[in-house]
């Protein structure tokens, strides 16, 4: 079994198509992207296991928050091991942890022990998220040196798209097993966790069965590596050295603030829509419209990952982040100025902001490759994801705290969000400056240059 999981066992035989690697990566990312659909569990858990508990709102958010924190921590802690042991090992570990998280949560529901749901989904499942998230990244970059933005964009779009699958699927399972509606039971919620865990165990297995690493020196047919400049990826920097460079921390700031700005809208999407456009034919129509707004943002989040990340292969990573951060700040400014004056303009701004949010994640691995080479890009990416953990706390904190204060001050309509949007503009401007300060990594951080020789290849 250990041999099957080793990096050597995953070296592709001649003729193996690199186009089998994106579906392998998607099998993992579409599954772990379920995390974005956690909110579907909140009401059923509050209505069953936590019925009557005045803190049910905070408690039902705990598993998700812990999972996101564990995502960043485990990606940072296990990144080097993922690079050393190979993607199959990482995908098996990710599958085991992610699925175990669901099974432990199911057990918690059956036994009435809510702490097991927090431990299972948040802690154990969160480790699965972190290891799974970085597991295919360096492999994809090695298979697609000519199109790193496209390849990582596909996988990371999967993470954004995971919620699209999980959200309706979970709702349907909860309804089928009696976990929601009148007479909802904790056992019904537990059964939903159990069945989801089993579905994901099967679905994710395609990932670790299909994944392969290219043989040493492999390169796509007809592709010649660029010959000039550190940004062309000719130099390698270890994960240990990478975190000693200003470039890593500047990119950390860029990612952190870009994510924080996106979460500004994502976190309160439905209430924001209802506050901007409260005049609907009925409360039900308003709720349906707000749900449509959330759906549209989810789509923008997923599609932005592949669209803008692929564009980065053509115009360069630094230019793309200039675009995300600079145009993002301008869009927030437009939202602040127009208020609810134009629904179409409001939607266009929100869609673009969310597409930049997703794109910030998807373009980061290719940016890291440009700066630090492919040597330990998975481990470096893992360390960078701690920015996400911080932003995951920072973003909702800013928006919710300000919105609550504005509500208490009886401020209504778009003005309720003006202070939040101004903070987002400032954060994006700071991120823009940080991106401008990113220069090629100094020679003293480089490892000995790799001397690979090309072999036969298939594209």
């Amino acid at each position: 079994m250990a041999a099957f999981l080793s990096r050597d066992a995953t070296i592709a035989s001649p003729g193996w198509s690199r186009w089998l690697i994106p579906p392998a990566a998607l099998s993992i990312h579409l599954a772990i992207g379920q995390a974005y659909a956690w909110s579907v569990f909140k009401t059923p858990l509050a209505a069953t296991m936590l019925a009557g508990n005045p803190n049910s709102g905070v408690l039902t958010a705990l598993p998700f928050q812990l999972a996101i924190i564990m995502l960043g921590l485990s990606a940072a802690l296990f990144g080097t091991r993922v690079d050393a042991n190979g993607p199959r090992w990482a995908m098996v570990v990710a599958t085991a942890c992610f699925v175990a998280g669901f099974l432990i949560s199911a057990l918690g529901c059956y036994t009435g022990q809510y702490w097991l749901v927090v431990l299972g989904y948040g802690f154990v499942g969160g480790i699965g998220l972190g290891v799974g998230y970085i597991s295919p990244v360096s492999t994809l970059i090695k298979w697609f040196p000519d199109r790193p933005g496209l390849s990582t964009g596909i996988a990371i779009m999967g993470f954004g798209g995971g919620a699209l699958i999980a959200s309706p699927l979970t709702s349907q399972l909860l309804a089928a097993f009696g976990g929601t509606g009148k007479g909802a039971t904790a056992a019904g919620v537990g059964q939903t966790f159990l069945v989801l865990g089993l579905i994901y165990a099967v679905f994710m297995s395609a990932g670790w069965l299909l994944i392969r690493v290219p043989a040493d020196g492999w390169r796509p047919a007809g592709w010649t590596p660029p010959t000039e400049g550190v940004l062309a990826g000719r130099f390698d920097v270890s994960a240990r050295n990478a975190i000693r460079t200003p470039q890593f921390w500047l990119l950390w700031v860029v990612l952190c603030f870009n994510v924080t700005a996106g979460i500004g809208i994502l976190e309160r999407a439905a209430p924001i829509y209802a506050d901007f456009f409260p005049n609907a034919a009925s409360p039900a129509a308003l709720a349906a419209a707000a749900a449509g707004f959330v759906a549209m943002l989810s789509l923008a989040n997923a599609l932005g990952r592949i669209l803008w990340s692929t564009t980065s292969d053509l115009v360069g990573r630094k230019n793309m982040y200039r675009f995300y951060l600079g145009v993002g700040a301008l869009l927030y400014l437009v939202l602040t100025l127009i208020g609810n004056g134009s629904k179409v303009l409001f939607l266009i701004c929100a869609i673009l902001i969310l597409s930049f949010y997703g794109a910030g994640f998807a373009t980061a691995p290719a940016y890291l490759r440009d700066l630090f080479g492919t040597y330990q890009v998975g481990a470096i990416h893992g360390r960078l994801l701690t920015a996400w953990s911080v932003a995951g706390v920072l973003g909702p904190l800013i928006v919710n705290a300000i919105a609550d204060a504005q509500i208490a001050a009886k401020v209504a309509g778009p003005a309720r969000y003006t202070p939040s949007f101004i903070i987002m503009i400032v954060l994006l401007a700071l991120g823009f400056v940080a991106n401008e300060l990113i220069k090629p990594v100094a020679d003293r951080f480089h490892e000995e240059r790799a001397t690979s020789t090309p072999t036969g290849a298939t594209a």
Partner: protein
Amino acid sequence: MTTQDKQASTMIIGVIAWLWVLIPFGYGLYELVIKIPALFGS
């Protein structure tokens, strides 16, 4: 196994692998898109 057989089996695996991920994604996309018209109905 001849090279031709190998190419054919790689292609079959490729089709199944892409369907494996695209079918669930298509389901999710469909469930999402049907909610969007409500946004313009209010």
